[in-house]
């Protein structure tokens, strides 16, 4: 009972400090729990898929270019026949993220093609309705996740219903149970690849996955994979040349073999288990970033440290006021152990109350819909019971740590001396407290600067040059009906006031993380790049600058404009000559554009804009995306509405969605923006906690110096002199902390910025700005408290110990 009574007594005596401290601790525990859920989200990525450690993603590399996940169907098919492989599947992107309609409900969802026989089976997909595979190439229809079926129909029994894409009507043939949110198998719409890519060694736009047998030696398989695949690859191509080879002379055979070797030579293969893909960065969908993950772990540790230091400072600061009371109990017969345990018990109770408050904050956050912009996955308490326990343990530990030293300090006096009131902070205790205050101010300064850097980077990412005019562009996916009227659409739209240019492309730039990957090899030359089919207006519509050669013109067909990164990598490229023998010619080089993740290095990733002519006639019209450039200063919303109306009118009556590209970019970079928001939130929380600490410590420090202030006043000091005396001490500590904080903040900031290929500079003014912010809180508190003490009647303070 004494524990609670003592807590209430101190809380009443120092209401503001106690409440602020409790609030700071509660926020720290809430933040710790949230960050732990995020760390768990990353650490358990893909681990919710059954046998994830045995499911391998196929990755390829040509001629020292970066590893990628592009592969061709025939090769994937033969990989699936390897003895260690139990099952396998493949995927191919079906285009930009599309809008699907059923009745009045529309949902935006990605759409992929998958292998007809196995589709999602290697990932342990559970069929809830209908079937999850297709019997032959003519078998049509799509499979959808249960969550989508629920949204459309309110039930998972959706097989037999139809979805409308704006172009086509798709029958739902099956519903699968959703995969965990933190997995690479997206809860998307899948259709059959049918016979697409079969026997085609030139089409490397498929992603392959292999599930190994339980008995397979995973490590040995990974080690031997490249050699085995190269052998199979050679044998497969050789089979195609079998007749020619058998009839050839020894010299001709040697030539064929040499040709085969040159074809296969540049190819390297590997497999990566699903449990390792998240952080690999091989695919644009590998959203994990190990450094970001580590930063979040550090955020957890730092939040705990800051909260612990703060709490220790708080209890240490108030402990001299407890000396007399505690030692009176000692004189009256209480044992040292029980007194110490009691004191520790008080801090433990406060920490646990703060923990409960913190978890209440988390509960409130779960009710807040906008929280999804801040966290990934569920943050519900019941979904993370082990983390809840861990946070409670941390709270307990902080309580014990914060109580232990003050408990020892308070009971370290001779009771007789303590009762006479002749005590105070020992020189050692004072030094420790000065050290803690300095540490707290240093942490505040580092964090304030760090947050500044994060905010600058966040702003930089959004406002930096993307290589195209994102702010003035909108796009729409066209239906089959509208595809037939592209020229008419162009004429109609250009006739609208405010429309500057119109073009067509296969993808909306920057609106997706998956694009078409192309790979070519000939002789000792090989290329692997992101291919973007476009029309000849495209670069000028998007505002992409051509820096060598020329832009496309209306007479162009079957040619490339490559980006600067590709130009640097493929040193042999000449304008108006084939990229490699037998491939399309390159007519120009354009500036690098940002089209995928912020962490994607546009300085090194090769991209080719391609006009698909005669040579790709069999592919049909792939340019299903309309791009419209709006004049600056026009009413964008009104114009979008006008364009939407026109497209709807020209189509079959179905509503056509027109999107602003800058909004889509924000969606594309949501992981990065979320991370930045998380880190900023973390920084602000730590900053608030440390500033609370600075406030409390300054308050206590002034409380301790009340008597000294009284004495000084008795001997003639003015109020101003007293305030100056108090603030000058903090000014000294601030300046000392600033000297320590500047290199620390600079180092932390630059380490974090290393994550980004394009980053803001660390401006010098961030440091004095942080000093002003922390200095204001510190000096203002010191001034207010000092003034209060200085204007008090000195005889009151002189009498007190």
């Amino acid at each position, binding site marked *: 009972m004494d524990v609670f009574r003592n807590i209430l007594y101190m809380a009443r005596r120092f209401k503001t400090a106690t409440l602020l401290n409790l609030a700071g601790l509660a926020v720290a525990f809430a933040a710790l729990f949230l960050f732990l859920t995020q760390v768990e989200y990353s650490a358990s990525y893909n681990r919710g898929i059954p046998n994830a450690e045995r499911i391998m993603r196929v990755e390829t590399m040509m001629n020292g270019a970066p590893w990628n996940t592009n592969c061709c169907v025939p090769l994937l098919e033969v990989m699936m026949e390897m003895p260690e492989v139990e099952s396998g599947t493949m995927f191919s992107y079906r285009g930009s993220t599309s809008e699907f309609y059923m009745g009045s409900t529309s949902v935006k969802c990605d759409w992929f093609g998958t292998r007809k026989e196995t589709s999602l089976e290697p990932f342990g997909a559970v069929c809830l309705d209908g079937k999850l595979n297709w019997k032959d190439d003519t078998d049509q229809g799509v499979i959808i996740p249960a969550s989508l079926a629920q949204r459309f129909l309110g039930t998972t029994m959706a097989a037999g219903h139809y979805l409308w894409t704006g172009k086509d009507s798709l029958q739902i043939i099956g519903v699968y149970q959703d995969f965990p949110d933190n997995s690479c198998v997206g809860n998307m719409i899948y259709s059959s690849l049918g016979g697409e890519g079969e026997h085609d060694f030139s089409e490397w736009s498929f992603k392959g996955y292999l599930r190994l047998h339980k008995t397979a030696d995973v490590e040995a398989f990974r080690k031997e994979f490249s050699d085995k695949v190269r052998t199979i690859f050679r044998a497969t191509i050789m089979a195609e040349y079998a007749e020619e080879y058998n009839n050839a002379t020894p010299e001709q055979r040697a030539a064929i073999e040499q040709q085969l070797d040159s074809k296969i030579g540049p190819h390297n293969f590997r497999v990566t288990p699903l449990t390792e893909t998240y952080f690999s960065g091989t695919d644009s969908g590998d959203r994990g970033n190990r450094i970001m993950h580590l930063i979040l772990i550090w955020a957890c540790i730092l939040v705990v440290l800051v909260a612990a230091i703060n709490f220790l400072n708080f209890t240490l600061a108030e402990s001299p006021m407890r000396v007399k009371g505690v030692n009176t109990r000692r004189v009256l017969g209480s044992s040292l152990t029980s007194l110490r345990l009691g004191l520790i018990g008080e801090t433990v109770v406060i920490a646990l109350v703060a923990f409960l408050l913190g978890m209440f904050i988390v509960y409130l956050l779960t009710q807040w819909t906008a929280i999804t912009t801040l966290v990934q996955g569920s943050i519900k308490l019941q979904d993370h019971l082990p983390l809840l326990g861990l946070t409670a343990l941390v709270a307990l530990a902080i309580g014990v740590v914060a109580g232990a030293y003050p408990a020892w300090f308070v009971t370290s006096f001779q009771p007789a001396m303590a009762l006479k009131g002749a005590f*105070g902070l020992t020189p050692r205790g004072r030094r420790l407290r000065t050290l803690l205050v300095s540490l707290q101010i240093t942490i505040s300064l580092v964090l304030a600067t760090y947050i500044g850097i994060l905010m600058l980077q966040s702003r930089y990412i959004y406002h930096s040059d993307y290589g195209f005019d994102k702010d003035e562009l909108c796009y729409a996916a066209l239906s089959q009906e509208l595809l037939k009227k592209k020229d008419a659409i162009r004429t109609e739209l250009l006739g609208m006031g405010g429309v500057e240019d119109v073009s067509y492309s296969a993808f909306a730039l920057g609106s997706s993380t998956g694009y078409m990957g192309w790979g070519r090899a000939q002789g000792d030359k090989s290329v692997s790049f992101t291919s973007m089919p476009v029309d000849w207006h495209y670069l000028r519509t998007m505002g992409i600058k051509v820096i060598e050669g020329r832009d496309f013109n209306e007479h162009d067909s079957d040619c490339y404009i490559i980006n600067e990164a590709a130009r640097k990598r493929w040193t042999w490229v000449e304008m108006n000559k084939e990229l490699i023998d037998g491939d399309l010619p390159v007519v120009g080089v354009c500036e690098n554009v940002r089209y995928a993740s912020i962490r994607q290095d546009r300085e090194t990733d090769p991209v080719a804009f391609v006009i698909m002519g005669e040579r790709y006639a069999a592919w049909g019209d792939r340019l299903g995306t309309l791009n419209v450039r709006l004049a600056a200063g026009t009413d964008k919303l009104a114009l979008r509405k006008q364009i939407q109306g026109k497209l709807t009118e020209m189509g079959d009556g179905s509503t056509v969605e027109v999107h602003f590209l800058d909004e889509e970019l924000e969606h594309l970079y949501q992981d990065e923006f979320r991370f930045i928001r998380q880190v900023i939130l973390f920084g602000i929380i730590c900053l608030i906690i440390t500033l609370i600490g600075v406030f409390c410590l300054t308050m206590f420090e002034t409380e301790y110096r009340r*008597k*000294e202030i*009284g*004495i*000084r*006043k*008795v*001997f*003639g*000091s*003015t*109020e101003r*002199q007293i305030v100056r005396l108090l603030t000058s001490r903090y000014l000294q500590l601030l300046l000392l902390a600033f000297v320590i904080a500047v290199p620390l903040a600079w180092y932390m900031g630059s380490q974090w910025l290393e994550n980004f290929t394009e980053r803001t500079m660390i401006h010098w003014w961030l440091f004095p700005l942080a000093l002003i912010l922390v200095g204001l809180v510190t000096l203002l508190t010191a001034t207010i408290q000092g003034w209060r003490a200085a*204007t008090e*009647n*000195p*005889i009151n303070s*002189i009498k007190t110990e």
Partner: protein
Amino acid sequence: MIKIENLTKIFRTEEVETVALDGVCLSVEQGEFVAIMGPSGCGKSTLLNIMGLLDNPTSGSYILDGEEVGHLKESQRTSVRKGKIGFVFQSFNLIDELNVEENIELPLKYIGVPQKERRERVVEILRRLELSHRAKHYPQQLSGGQQQRVAIARAVVMNPKLILADEPTGNLDSKNGLEVMQLLTQLNNEGTTIVMVTHSQRDAGFAQRIVNLLDGQIVPEARL
């Protein structure tokens, strides 16, 4: 030097009103040594605080050196107090963070004495009070008697006309107490006016006049 007439001090809280001084009249001449005695709670320290301009009376008049100072603002009181009144407390009230010479130097700083002169005056007072060997020591390194001598040195270093001592021997043994009283007598002999609050008859015996207080009023000795 001091003329107090009909001085009243009432402490008011929400529930209780305490009359600490009730119509006190007192005069102290320049160079006099006056002891104020009385039981606990009789108003001795309150009277001393008002005389030292640490507090204002509720009513009445207090004339110090011919000037009415009974109802000044805090800043005006500080200005009058500076350099004119020295204080000696029962619990010494030295500043723990400052060493002996810094503690003694403190009042000189506040009256704006130049640093060189401050040093000279501190050295002189340390020599006079035989504390030179303790100049760099901190209060907690000194005995009670030594701490009180430092407190007296701090009170006299600015050559005040008036020293107010609130039970200066209360925390000392008899030997150290005697030394402190001899020191105060010596200062009085040099011309400093001293008003001392004490419980001790022996200490009061050092004064030239004893004023008795009871329930906030000055009474003849026979009534105590």
